[in-house]
């Protein structure tokens, strides 16, 4: 059998594909054939590497060379230089943002050094459309082990002992959830995978489904055996076409191998999976709303109890787990609950996948052990703040989370610590903000999202969030008062206490956490009608620095309202009353003489 000397792994995730990674694969294969190297190097389309900031990614093995920002036209050079002659293509190597030096391989990248990959173990490593590659990585061996060696009770006990908690945001102990669903008697039960990933900026579930779909199928089947269910349903948003396609391929392959169907692996366990498509409503990530949506009803939550474990899909006992939670399951059986429980903190075991976004150098998907600090994530893995700016805040937990500041940077990240400081784990979105971000505007942005996504069933969420948004809008326009700030806080507390489901109960979090951590900024908006970050357009001021202005008159010519006056070769002045804050002057000035001051003029 011909042995390939090199493997060229090309990211086939949604992000890299949108930058033509399919064409890169084609071109690589074409160039290999042209040079007669098609038996020397193999091109493999994998799932996401997580380093989405600088995609498309091409990773060359065995030397772990990590090429970033590859264009289809670069394929010929990679083949001619690297594959044929063994010379790395320097210009495509990842450059360390601090040292500005090319990094030879992924093992030396700060981005990967602190990561522990359990849920993402196969992403960027195997071809997700090839079940054999999954099996080569001990795929379906966990299912075989459970079916051959364990009773359902014993299998549930393993998950309980591991300390695994739900990764979708709630943090409910997974083993306990299975146990409850297992104890409820019924003629039919259901295993549901919640792939309705809705947090803006979070894409770990999509990446797992795209990069390692079999791990979800295997975990759902194990769960089915544990709770006594023969049917699995994946609720996935229709706006994830690639994840759907890969999942469909994987289900088909598993059926052909008999890994889904009747009497799996010669046991009495039967299990099969169907897909259900969601229309992309945020509230449908809430398990009762999700179940209603699957039944063809309105995607609205209902009061718990009854919990889905008692009466869920079609009023049968139903166990709902998030994608990332399920991705951990096979690894726990293979490597033991002791191993899993040895990673993480006292009450939060294992790892968590975070989607790093915002003003950070290495935007992407990372998996880190629980208990790592925000500082390590942002400055070591994330490579620090973009353009050398100052860190201001990090928003964790998506629209339901809170904004944390400098003083929280050394807090070990786990479910309980984040709650204690007024934020939450959520599904693992992490948006980093720098000195240019206005926290009132940030809170307003998240409220805009929750107002849009509220299902409207309960008054606190439907009306309360709308009022919160109006108050924030008023403040960003410079029309707010100190009473409004008080009102914001009171209303937030009431909404939290009275809303029906998780969406409404958490939606005021961005407001409360910014009120707590950035009270000065709110006060500046209402007392001085000033936005310290210079973000709120209505409150922005432009100032010409007299010592830097050379009097070139460029700004006076672009100003649409004639607000800038001054003689040639003399410092100019802006008439604040006439200025409409369009920013045309600041763009035109070649001498950096126009600034947005951080204090009111």
């Amino acid at each position, binding site marked *: 059998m011909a042995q390939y000397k090199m493997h060229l792994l090309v990211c086939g995730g949604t992000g890299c594909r949108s930058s033509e990674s399919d064409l890169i694969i084609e071109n690589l294969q074409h160039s290999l054939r042209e040079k007669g190297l098609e038996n020397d190097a193999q091109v493999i389309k994998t799932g996401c590497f997580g380093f989405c900031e600088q995609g498309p990614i091409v990773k060359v093995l065995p030397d772990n060379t990590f090429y970033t920002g590859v264009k289809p036209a670069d394929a010929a050079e990679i083949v001619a230089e690297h594959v044929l*002659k063994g010379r790395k293509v320097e210009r495509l190597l990842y450059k360390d943002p601090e040292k500005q030096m090319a990094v030879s391989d992924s093992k030396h990248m700060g981005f990967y050094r602190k990561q522990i990959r359990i849920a993402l173990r196969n992403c960027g490593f195997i071809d997700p459309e090839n079940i054999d590659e999954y099996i080569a990585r*001990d795929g379906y061996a966990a299912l075989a082990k459970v079916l051959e060696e364990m009773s359902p009770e014993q299998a549930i006990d393993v998950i309980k002992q591991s300390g695994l908690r739900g990764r979708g945001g709630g943090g409910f102990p997974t083993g306990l959830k299975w146990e409850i669903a297992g104890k409820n008697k019924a003629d039919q039960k259901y295993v549901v995978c919640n792939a309705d990933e809705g947090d803006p900026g979070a894409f770990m579930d999509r990446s797992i489904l795209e990069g390692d779909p079999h791990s979800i199928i295997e975990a759902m089947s194990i769960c089915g055996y544990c709770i006594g269910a023969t049917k699995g349903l994946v609720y996935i948003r229709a706006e994830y076409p690639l994840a759907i396609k890969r999942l469909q391929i994987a289900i088909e392959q598993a059926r052909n191998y008999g890994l889904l169907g009747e009497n799996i692996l010669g046991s009495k366990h039967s299990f099969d999976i169907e897909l259900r498509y969601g229309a992309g409503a945020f509230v449908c990530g809430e398990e009762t709303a999700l179940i209603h949506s699957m039944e063809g009803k309105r995607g609205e939550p209902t009061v718990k109890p009854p919990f889905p474990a008692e009466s869920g899909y079609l009023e049968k006992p139903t166990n709902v787990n998030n994608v990332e939670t399920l991705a951990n399951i096979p690894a726990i059986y293979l490597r033991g609950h002791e191993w899993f429980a040895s990673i993480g903190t006292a009450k939060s075991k294992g790892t968590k996948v975070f989607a790093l976004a915002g003003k950070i150098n290495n935007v992407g998907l990372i998996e880190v052990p629980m208990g790592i600090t925000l500082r390590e994530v942002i400055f070591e893995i994330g490579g620090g703040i973009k353009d050398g700016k100052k860190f201001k805040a990090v928003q964790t937990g998506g629209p339901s989370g809170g904004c944390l500041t400098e003083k929280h940077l050394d807090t070990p990240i786990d479910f309980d610590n984040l709650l204690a400081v007024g934020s939450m784990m959520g599904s693992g979105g992490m948006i980093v903000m720098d000195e240019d971000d206005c926290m009132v505007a940030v809170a307003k942005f998240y409220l805009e999202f929750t107002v849009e996504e509220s299902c409207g069933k309960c008054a606190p969420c439907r009306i309360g969030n709308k009022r919160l948004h109006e108050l924030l809008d008023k403040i960003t326009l410079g029309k707010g008062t100190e009473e409004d700030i008080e009102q914001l806080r009171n209303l937030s507390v009431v909404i939290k206490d009275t809303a029906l489901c998780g969406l409404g109960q958490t939606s005021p979090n961005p407001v409360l956490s910014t009120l707590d951590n950035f009270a000065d900024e709110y006060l500046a908006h209402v007392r001085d009608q000033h936005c310290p970050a210079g973000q709120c357009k209505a409150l922005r001021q432009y100032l010409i620095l007299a010592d830097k202005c050379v009097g070139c008159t460029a700004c006076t010519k672009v100003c649409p309202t004639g607000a800038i006056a001054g003689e040639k070769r003399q410092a100019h002045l802006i008439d604040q009353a006439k200025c409409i804050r369009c920013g045309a002057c600041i763009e035109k000035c070649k001498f950096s003489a126009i600034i947005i001051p951080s204090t009111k003029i």
Partner: protein
Amino acid sequence: MNKIKSLNDLRKIKQDVEQKMDLREKSDNPDRYVQIKVAMATCGIAAGAREVMNTLIEKIAQDKIDAVVTQTGCMGYCHAEPTVEVRKPGAEPVVFGHVDREKALAIIDKYIKTGELLEGIIPVNYQTA
């Protein structure tokens, strides 16, 4: 496609695919394996490095040796091409010059398996980062 009926069937598939995946598994933990680098610049290729590399790869697969074969650029020993650098885990690299098919096999059988040195070692006169 045959149905998978037991853990053994699963293992059989795993074994069939394992060799294809071997390169990826080993690259993921480079420090645990013997690293063999074949200089494949123009001079190396002209002197027959490609054949040497193929020999090494086949031999390693055949004898199931925990090693990764990588190609590198010119190491600067053009007078002694083809050259092969071998770095055992935790040891200093050793560079062999004038490697042909026979010598490639000897490197694996002697140096890698038993630690016995061969003739034609080039003193390493550089440090790599």
